[in-house]
């Protein structure tokens, strides 16, 4: 999966840089909107199909919603702090981080504000997923099981779910999915909200 993503973005960048017919670049906007609609619909089908999110939340208690809230707070506060080391404003670093690992959606939402922020958002959110996969076993072993779902954020409900469950236990699956779903819904709200700050 990671390899396909890297291959696709590299091919795209090379094509955009060396070939770049104006018409193709301009039609990318429509392609992105269309592709995004399709992807969001399919992600929706996947969430709806499991159909038990609300019951799951009821079963483990609404306190489980504190986990995604903690992920958002930790992500935004530390992203703001990272601006001290970078030639970026806290608003910009928070905008990049507010993608919460959803690299196919967040960069598109930022594209209308700035091309470099959009590219940074893509790279950062892909890195979040890749580094999560690497770090989950260590966090599970040395810090705690629930903390694992904080690493991939929105991706905790799908791509990284098998890794989280593999490194922890079945009981964490329910936390991972509910947190991932809540965070996925937060991304399209959070990104524009941070940019309006």
């Amino acid at each position, binding site marked *: 999966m990671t390899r396909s993503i890297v291959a696709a973005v590299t*091919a795209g960048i090379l094509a955009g*840089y060396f070939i770049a017919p104006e018409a193709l670049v301009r039609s990318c906007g429509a392609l992105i909107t269309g592709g995004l609609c399709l992807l969001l*619909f399919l992600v929706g089908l996947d969430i709806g*199909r499991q159909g038990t999110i609300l019951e799951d939340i009821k079963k483990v208690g609404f306190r489980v919603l504190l986990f995604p*809230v903690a992920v958002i707070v930790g992500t935004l506060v530390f992203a703001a702090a990272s601006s001290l080391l970078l030639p970026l404003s806290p608003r910009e670093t928070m905008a*990049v981080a507010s993608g919460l690992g959803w690299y196919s959606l967040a960069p598109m939402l930022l594209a209308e504000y700035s091309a470099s922020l959009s*590219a940074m958002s893509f*790279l950062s959110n892909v890195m979040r997923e890749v580094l999560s996969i690497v770090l989950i076993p260590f966090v599970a072993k040395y*810090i705690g099981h629930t*903390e694992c779902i904080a690493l991939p954020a929105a991706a905790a409900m799908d791509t990284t779910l098998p890794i989280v469950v593999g490194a922890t236990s079945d009981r964490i699956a329910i936390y991972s999915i509910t947190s991932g779903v809540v965070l996925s819904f937060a991304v399209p709200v959070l990104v524009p909200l941070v940019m309006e700050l």
Partner: protein
Amino acid sequence: MDTTLLLYIGIMAAGILIGSRTMSPEKEYKWLGRLQFLALMVLITALGIRIGADDKVVSSLKEIGLSAFVITIFTLAGSVLCLWLVRKWMGLDREGVKKDD
């Protein structure tokens, strides 16, 4: 918060509604995964083309990558720390089990 955003959220909500009404949680839907992968690849390639066609972005790709990396490390550390605090506050042990259970 513009109309495209409402469109995105609306489409996802429609997917959830249709998925919960017409699909089963037990059955495996291979086409769903394949179609998701295809849509993802198209999106990522289109995004790459946009990045590659933007000279300003290309000329600063190194700095953009470095900034992205620093932000990512900070966000990972921050989210784990915050979740750890919440876990302690909720009285869960390292396995996520309530201590007095």
